[in-house]
């Protein structure tokens, strides 16, 4: 078998095993929370009958492993159970919000990734120049601020001051793509500013690492233009670390949007997660955790596979 295929299959297998272990951890962690869920939800004043009815309704009387497997089985088919707080099916509650969160993360990534890679290459090309330093320090400044701070600054400038973009990103299902992009521009910019620095710096560092190598010197000695040396000779060999940091940041985009969504009142997962945590709505928290974990694992899996493919030694075996 082609070695690359077997490596990828192995990675896939490991990825799914990891995901499965994560489901156990999430389920167990919630089980271990102190206190009785029924009492917590219904309050100290609840009667024995109403507590029993609550437990019956949410299957709390069955043994742990049975509940785990029925939860897992449901989760795989997209049914995360029923919200403890408002008794509605969780999938109905979070379905379109998950979509919104992925949309916002994708939007931010579509802006951030190209800018990060190109500016990282430019910084490597003009290494040590004023341009390089300004870029490095300004992106570093951007990640040094918490996201809600950046969000408010952007609102202050572009919404309150200039009035170009709305401060609330209240989208709904019927909205067209253009309108949606317009309304979510500020949250997307906030996220872009946060993830840009890591990706840009990694691109720059990965390329600079290569510049002392003989084949880069060789390219210079062949009289190749400097920009081409960076883009054509260095970048393809620097892809593996760049892909990995991009994947990590994309995963962060999805998981880390919580605060930004709250600031912009954006109907994504973040808002509902904050509500669920304050309500002790355990089943919703479980579902959100699982979605976040799956995103992290799948994105990293994808990054792994892409960096394997980016290695010519594996792609073109002897």
């Amino acid at each position: 078998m082609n070695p690359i295929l077997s490596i990828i299959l192995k990675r896939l297998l490991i990825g799914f095993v990891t995901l499965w272990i994560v489901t156990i951890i999430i389920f167990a962690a919630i089980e271990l929370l102190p206190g009785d869920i029924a009492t917590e939800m219904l309050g100290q004043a609840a009667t024995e009958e109403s507590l029993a009815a609550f437990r019956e309704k949410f299957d709390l009387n069955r043994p742990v492993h049975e509940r785990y497997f029925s939860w897992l089985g449901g989760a795989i088919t997209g049914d995360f159970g029923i919200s403890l707080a408002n008794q509605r099916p969780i999938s109905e509650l979070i379905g379109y919000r998950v979509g919104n969160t992925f949309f916002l993360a994708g939007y931010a990534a579509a802006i951030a990734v190209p800018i990060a890679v190109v500016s990282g290459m430019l910084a490597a090309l003009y290494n040590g120049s004023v341009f390089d330093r300004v870029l490095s320090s300004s992106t570093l400044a951007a990640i040094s601020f918490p996201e809600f701070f950046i969000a408010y600054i952007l609102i202050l400038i572009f919404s309150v001051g200039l009035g170009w973009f709305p401060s609330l990103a209240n989208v709904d299902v019927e909205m067209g793509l253009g309108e949606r992009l317009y309304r979510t521009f500020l949250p997307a910019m906030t996220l872009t500013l946060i993830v840009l620095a890591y990706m840009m710096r990694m691109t720059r560092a990965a390329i600079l690492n290569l510049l002392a190598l003989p084949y880069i010197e060789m390219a210079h000695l062949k009289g190749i233009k400097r920009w081409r040396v960076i883009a054509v000779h260095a970048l393809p060999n620097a892809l593996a670390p760049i892909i990995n940091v991009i994947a990590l940041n994309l995963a962060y985009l999805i998981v880390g949007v919580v605060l930004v969504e709250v600031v912009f009142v954006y109907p994504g997962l973040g808002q509902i997660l904050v509500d669920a945590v304050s309500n002790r709505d355990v089943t919703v928290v479980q579902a959100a955790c699982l979605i976040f974990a799956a995103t992290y694992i799948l994105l990293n899996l994808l990054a792994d596979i892409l960096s394997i493919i980016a290695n010519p030694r594996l792609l073109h075996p002897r």
Partner: protein
Amino acid sequence: MTDLLLEMKDIRIEGRSDRQWKPIIKGVNLTLNRGEILGLIGESGAGKSTLGLAAMGYTKGGCRISGGSIHFDGQDLVGASNEALRQLRGARIAYVAQSAAAAFNPAYRLIDQYCEAPVKHGVMSRADAQSDAVELYRKIRLPNPEDIGFRYPHQVSGGQLQRAMTAMAMACRPDLIIFDEPTTALDVTTQIEVLAAIRDIVREYNTAAIYITHDLAVVAQMADKIKVLLRGEEVEEAPARDMLANPQQDYTKSLWAVRDFRRAPPAARHVDEGPLLEIRDMTAGYGAVDILKGINLTITRGSTVAVVGESGSGKSTMARVVMGLLPPSSGSLHYNGAALPKSGKQRPRDLQRHIQMIHQMADTALNPKHRIKDIIGRPLEFFLGLKGRAKDVRIRELLTLIELDPDEFINRMPSELSGGQKQRVCIARALAAEPDFIICDEVTSALDQLVAEGILRLLDRLQREMDLTYMFITHDIATVRSIADEVVVMQNGVIVEQGAKETIFSPPHAPYTELLLSSVPEMDPDWLAGLLKERGAMVTSEEQL
């Protein structure tokens, strides 16, 4: 065609270290006519590569041309703009690097890299460049010239890569090529083919060349004239034949003399005592692949057994087996009459102490974060339980033994040592365990000839004083001639011939030994031509493999 192509006058190059500029090249003059080949020789650090690159108007990062002038075909390179230099490089002056494996971009096929310069310099179209590449690949005697270009660098052998790189340098038919130690990393048998290919193609296109090497015998085959460099200064320059026959300067003579080191017959060989190490019918490998097949070898106490062969012949794997790093899949090892456990972990510490190893790359064998005293002190503590003052005294003794001043070196970091000094520290570390048997794995291969000779003399002296036994792994026949008592010739994981040095080195030889011995370059400038004529069809031996 004797008109002037390159003229460097009083060229000075500085490198930046410790926040100040230090001279690397201290006023060297160099002239080169069209079609002429200049051999540039000297030890590492002499400034050969720096001078060679300066002929392209190029300096490595952290270096600058601080004085003098360089004129290439009438054009001033020192004052030229970056853009003007870029247009020259690759088109009219090309470069062939030492390690072709590192100098080819791993992400692209050979032919893509070949075509890049001609297409980007506007010399020819991609299609023309591609068919031209096939033509040059054929001229330089690469196997399957039509297809080889479509392989990636890692899919091609080192000797073939080096030829492909020479072809790539030829792509724009430059007036001048800088060859920077193009065969240093190759086996002797491969080196010959690359040398012949380079020489023929350079002559065919009447290309001028600067051929940089530290190997005198190689330069003797290639150059019309030779320039000797020492610490950034010219020692002397003369036509090749004059220089070889009659070097004027003491330094040049000392370089010439290195190859004559011969060790005196061993003081104490204990032939009657029974073997120190015995390997019986041993097979070993990684995974399902057997690297070593049916190895039988006995080593007498107090002797030096040289293991020779090309890279990939299994020499280092044998060292790993003896060290217990790689348990063999079958066969047995006996040390001092007793069975030696296959895995090093199963060996008692005292037995581990008896067998020590010195590695090829002293650079990577020393922990860069440890001081010399810690590096040498560790085996003293681990094997002999020495502590405090006793350990300190012993470290000083060992440093004296390897001819390094204890007061000066005991607190240094490895980065503050030269290559030869580092290798000496590695020797001291092996000696610290008070071993009987030391495996030397290519210990002089990365060193200059003069430094290497010093290491060989040191090892020889230590052997006499401490009654050591060496297994000396090397691919360098000259080293074998100087130090071995017995020789083991390996090829593809099998011992093809073994015996006393005198027997192995005098005819008749086994066929592979013959090939190996005859491939070692000799100082005679006509040696290569003569050998190739003699071998005739054998030139293509690499292709048949």
